[in-house]
């Protein structure tokens, strides 16, 4: 008796390939952690051998941050959004008048970023209306520098 040969399909089974690939995609998507990749850029002044020009407190706009997170601008308590009205006439007269941010050692870091960001945002917002604002100088001296120059 002639045995009939069973015919095998000459194809590679690829139907499950999509399932495997989609499972891999889901795995990658779940394990991906979205990382913060953006931040405020802050240029540090060069540490020079000869001392930098001494700025008198009176010649600058002095923003202090108290430990509770409130602000003192030139010793006057102020809300963050009122700072612009205060500094605008001063900067109009002298755009290079330095703005010094001086947070208390116990003040939260977030408040320093808030003020710095606020000032930088003013620069961006009013760049066309008030061209002098591009000359605005914002400095955040460290404790060591403050002690060296102002004590």
């Amino acid at each position, binding site marked *: 008796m002639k045995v009939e040969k069973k015919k095998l399909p000459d194809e590679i089974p690829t*139907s499950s390939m999509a399932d495997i*690939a989609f499972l891999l995609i889901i795995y*990658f998507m779940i394990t991906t952690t979205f990382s913060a990749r*953006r931040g405020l850029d802050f240029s540090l002044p060069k540490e020079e051998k000869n001392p930098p020009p001494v700025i008198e407190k009176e010649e600058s706009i002095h923003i202090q941050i108290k430990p509770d997170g409130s602000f003192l601008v030139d010793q006057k308590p102020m809300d963050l959004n009122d700072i612009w009205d205060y500094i605008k006439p001063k900067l109009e007269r002298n755009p290079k008048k330095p703005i010094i941010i001086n947070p208390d050692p116990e003040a939260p870091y977030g408040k*320093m970023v*808030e003020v710095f*960001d606020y000032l930088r945002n003013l620069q961006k917002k009013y760049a066309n209306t008030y061209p002098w604002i591009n000359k605005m100088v914002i400095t955040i001296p*460290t404790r060591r520098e403050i002690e060296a120059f102002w004590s």
Partner: protein
Amino acid sequence: MRKKIKALEHKAVIPTASMADIAFLLIIFFMLTITFEVDKTQVALPKAAIRKEVPKKAAYISITKEGVVRVSGGDEISTVVPLETVSSFALEVTSIDPNKEFVLKADKEVPYRLVDEVIDALKQAQVKVVYLLSEAKPVEEQ
């Protein structure tokens, strides 16, 4: 005698042959665009409106709410170090690449004195730019 016309039979099949190709293309896209986080410290970042893209190979310094400081040169996973050694770490990094950017990833509740010491260390190491890592501020608050 009328001939019975046989209806043309269509097999009910959805063509799935190209599905795998699409899926693999997606995988390749994900694999190419993925950026591995250098520093995995969980911190509540401060919010800011002005935000610039941090360079990929930047060195990281992170400070948690509890005051734990971690550093990473940009390629390796970050390690916990005492605050005093940040300046030697920064010097080490800038001696290899003087234009290296630094990223400060600090919790918004961190007392400023810790940040102050880190910035002071970076200034002494002649670092040029520091990025203060932040989250996006909602538009209505700006």
